[in-house]
Every structure is written in structure tokens, then in C-alpha cells.
């Protein structure tokens, strides 16, 4: 390495060292300022933490509802209950007729015996079934629409089947699934809206806290500017302060949601057991929790940046 390159490397190294030392000092200064008013700091963190915990808890609930919806499958199957007088032969004929339609993918026939066995398998129904002298269940056709069939075509199929004289009742499974999907989508949008509004509230809370801090340290800022501090240097401790508020509030929010999960775990486990394991209550992923901390940190930083920029814009160099 020649002398010139060596000197350039030294300058870069020295600039980096200067930058690192300034950041270290600003971080220590921010921590010192936060530690000087423990109650105020704790209250600010609590307010922001609760504001972040609310959408996170809602998201947890929504994630589980989505999971539940997924577990129930996304088929648009139709259950066709035949009238009580209809036997195996009529059921087979009707199934054959339906298989000939282009909007029908498959048709399965479920006998009354199969239906009874399935019912008996569900926890709590075994004894009740034993007490019934005859099998009261009808033949049922499980009709799966052809792949790619849209909702309107399925509704048209349901209408046609309902009009058949052998049919007592048609249960359109896709209809309630569509309603559930619509509800989940509504919930998702409410969660996003809630997160945006409470995130904005968190920015305002941090912004106002930092603004008051800046106002209380106006003389210090003035002295710093007079003895050669750049606007970046002056702003830096407040940005750290905002980011630290945000990080602490994020940790609190994650802690609250983990506590919520822990509290709900036992009753949900009982509920899951009663549904023979078909339901599952899941917590938030580590990725989501880490992302929450990151978002909280950025919100705190943003609040501090807005407050410090407003102050610095009003003061001259």
C-alpha cells in the first residue's frame, strides 16, 4: 500500500472512529436522560406498549380464526339430504344423474349407517345414539362441484338440486365458508386500521414526550450549537431516546401478548380436546414478534425525528 492510500485509509478509519464515539456518547446520554425520570419514562413506555399490544392481540385472534377456517377446508361441497322414503337405489340413480352435469365434479353416497357411525364417533353423542331404536338418518349425497366452478355456478347447481322431488334439504357448505372468509377479511382490515391508528398514536405520544424533553433542554441545545455541534449531532440523542422508547414499548407489547397467549392456552386446550383435536390455538411466530419490535423501534424513532426536526427548523444555526 502506498503512502497516499495508507493516509486515505487512516482518515476513513479516523472518521469512522469519530462517528462511532459520537454515537456511543449520544446513546449513553439518551439512557441517562431516560433514567433521570423513571416514572415518566415508564408511563410513556406503558402507553405506547398498550397501544401496540392491542392490534397485536387482535392479530393473534385473527390468525387463529384464519387457521380455523383453513382447518375446515376450502371446498364448496354440497350436502344433499334425501327424503326419508328414498332408498339406496333412488340415491344411486340421483347420484348418477348429477354426475352427468358439467358443473359437478364428483358425487359420493353416504348411507344412513355411515352417517350414524360418524355421529357416534363424535365425543358425547355415543350414548345418545344408543338410546335411539331406529336409524332416523336419510341417504346423503356429497356433491363436489367441478374444479374452477365459481360461486354463481355453485348457487345455480344448489337451486337445481333443491328443486328435485327426492331432495329434502340441501346444505351449501360453500355459502358459510364464503361468509367466514368475508368476516376474516373484515377482521383483517380492522386489524390493519387499528394498527395504523394506534401506530400513529404511538408516534404522537413519543413525539410529544421528546418535544417536551427538547423544550426542557433548550439551553443545552443552544450551547451545543454555539460550541460547534451540527444539527445531526444535536438531534441524535433524541432519536436514540425515541428508538429506545419504541423498543421498550415493543418488548412490553410482545410480553403482554405472550401473557395473553399463556392465559388463553389452558381453556383453548380444553376446547380443542372437545373437538377431538380438529381445532388448534397457535401463538404468534417469532418472526412476527421480532417484526413487532422492529416496527415499534421505527415508530419511536419517527416520533422523535418529527419532534426534533420541528425544533431544529425553528432555531437558527
Amino acid at each position, binding site marked *: 500500500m502506498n503512502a497516499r492510500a495508507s493516509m486515505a485509509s487512516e482518515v476513513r478509519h479516523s472518521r469512522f472512529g469519530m462517528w462511532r464515539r459520537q454515537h456511543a456518547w449520544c446513546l449513553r446520554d439518551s439512557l441517562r436522560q431516560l433514567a433521570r425520570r423513571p416514572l415518566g419514562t415508564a408511563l410513556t413506555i406503558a402507553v405506547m406498549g398498550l397501544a401496540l399490544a392491542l392490534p397485536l392481540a387482535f392479530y393473534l385472534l385473527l390468525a387463529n380464526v384464519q387457521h380455523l377456517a383453513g382447518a375446515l377446508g376450502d371446498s364448496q361441497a354440497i350436502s344433499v339430504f334425501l327424503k326419508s322414503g328414498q332408498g339406496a337405489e333412488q340415491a344411486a340413480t340421483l347420484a348418477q344423474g348429477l354426475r352427468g352435469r358439467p358443473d359437478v365434479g364428483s358425487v359420493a353416497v353416504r348411507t344412513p349407517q355411515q352417517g350414524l357411525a360418524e355421529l357416534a364417533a363424535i365425543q358425547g353423542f355415543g350414548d345418545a345414539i344408543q338410546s335411539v331404536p331406529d336409524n332416523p338418518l336419510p341417504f346423503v349425497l356429497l356433491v363436489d362441484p367441478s374444479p374452477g366452478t365459481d360461486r354463481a355456478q355453485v348457487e345455480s347447481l344448489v337451486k337445481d338440486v333443491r328443486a328435485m322431488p327426492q331432495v329434502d334439504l340441501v346444505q351449501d357448505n360453500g355459502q358459510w365458508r364464503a361468509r367466514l372468509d368475508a368476516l376474516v377479511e373484515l377482521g383483517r382490515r380492522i386489524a390493519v386500521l387499528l394498527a395504523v391508528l394506534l401506530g400513529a398514536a404511538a408516534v404522537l405520544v413519543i413525539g410529544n414526550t421528546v418535544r417536551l424533553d427538547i423544550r426542557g433542554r433548550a439551553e443545552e441545545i443552544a450551547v451545543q450549537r454555539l460550541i460547534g455541534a451540527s444539527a445531526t449531532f444535536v438531534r441524535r440523542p433524541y432519536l436514540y431516546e425515541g428508538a429506545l422508547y419504541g423498543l421498550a414499548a415493543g418488548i412490553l407489547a410482545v410480553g403482554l401478548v405472550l401473557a395473553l397467549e399463556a392465559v388463553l392456552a389452558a381453556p383453548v386446550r380444553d376446547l380443542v380436546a372437545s373437538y377431538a383435536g380438529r381445532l388448534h390455538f397457535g401463538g404468534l411466530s417469532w418472526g412476527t414478534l421480532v417484526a413487532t419490535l422492529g416496527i415499534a423501534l421505527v415508530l419511536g424513532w419517527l416520533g422523535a425525528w418529527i419532534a426534533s426536526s420541528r425544533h431544529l427548523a425553528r432555531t*437558527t444555526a
Partner: protein
Amino acid sequence: MIRFDSVSKRYPEGREALIDLTFVVEPGEMLFVTGHSGAGKTTLLKLIAAIERPNHGTIEVHGRNLARLRRRDIPRLRRDIGMVFQDHRLLMDRSVADNIALPLVIAGIPRDERARRVRGALEKVGLAGRGKDTPAALSAGEKQRVGIARAIAGRPSLIIADEPTGNLDPQLSEEIMQLFTALKATGSTIVIASHDLPLLKRMKQRVIVLDHGHLIDDVAAREVA
């Protein structure tokens, strides 16, 4: 070196603070600026530190034309200037050492070097061992010494002081001035605004006299009686 060439400063409310000022301060020189209250002494110091900008004329500090100085370069200029204020402007919630170290932190000086320079500055102003005290525990004279220590810690080649003895009794004023004289001996250029005429006479340094913004007299050190 400081060069004022036909410098005028008018504040937005219309007050003419300085009118057509021309003078030069050589490196290593000690200059007193005097005049009655409102004569323009503080404005002159503010122009040197680029706290205010002139409406007319040219100011050069360390070879830099302040009119051409970009806003982002002002902090760098100020890091080359040690400033002493009449009311000290110390941070009361910080220790003496932290106050003195502040310009060094801003300049990104490493911690060990900072501690060394703070100790050196405290020794120079006669406050060795008082670094851990808070400014509240100091007398008015000691606070001013800390202000001077903060100004010299960054080893600036130029020190400006606005009425540094304004709140001090004659004996303390004398001690503070002795400190400035010692700093001049190390090669620093020093500009001090003061209206304490008896003190200026005893100091026997160059004095410029302002009156309603006009430079009405420029008395060489040897002519001060």
C-alpha cells in the same frame, strides 16, 4: 487572523448594530472591544462566530470568507473558536468535567484523550480536582473558569469572550484576565468584549472602541494608558 472589511449589520427590526467596520486582528493578538451598552460589541462577536450574518462587507476568520460559508460548515468554524459567555452557559445537570468535555465529544475526540484534555484544561484554570463537582457547587468566579476551560479544551486558535468578567468582582476579574493573558502567551488569538475600562487599562492590550455601531477608536497596546 480576523479581517473585517466595511462590515455593516442591521437587525430585522431596523436597528443598525454595526456600521462600516474595518479592522484586522493578527494571529496571536489580544483585542478588547469596548463601548457602552448597545454599541455593537456582542454583535461583533456574533459575526465572528457566524451566529449572525453581515448585511454588507466581508468577514474573514482563519482565511475563511464567512459570506461564502455554507450553513453546514458553520459547526466546523465554531469548533475552531472557543467561546466564553458572560453568564457561563454551563449545563447545570452535568459535572464540571462533562461540561468541559462537551466540545471534545462534539469533535469526536477519543475518551482517553478527552479525559487528558479535561484534566489539562482544569489545571490551566486552577480547578484541578474539581471535575466531579456540579457547577452549582462552584462560585461565580469558578464557574467562569470552567467556561474558559470549556473554551480552551478543544485547543482553538481563536477565543472570543463576551463580557467574561461582567458578573465578577474586581479581584476575580483580574484573575480571569490573567488566564486570558496566559492563553495569549500560548499563541491563541483572543477577542474580548468588555465595558470595564479600568480593567482594560490595566491589561494594556489593543482596544477598539465602538459607539452606536461605529468604530470610533483603535488604540494599539502600547498606547493604552
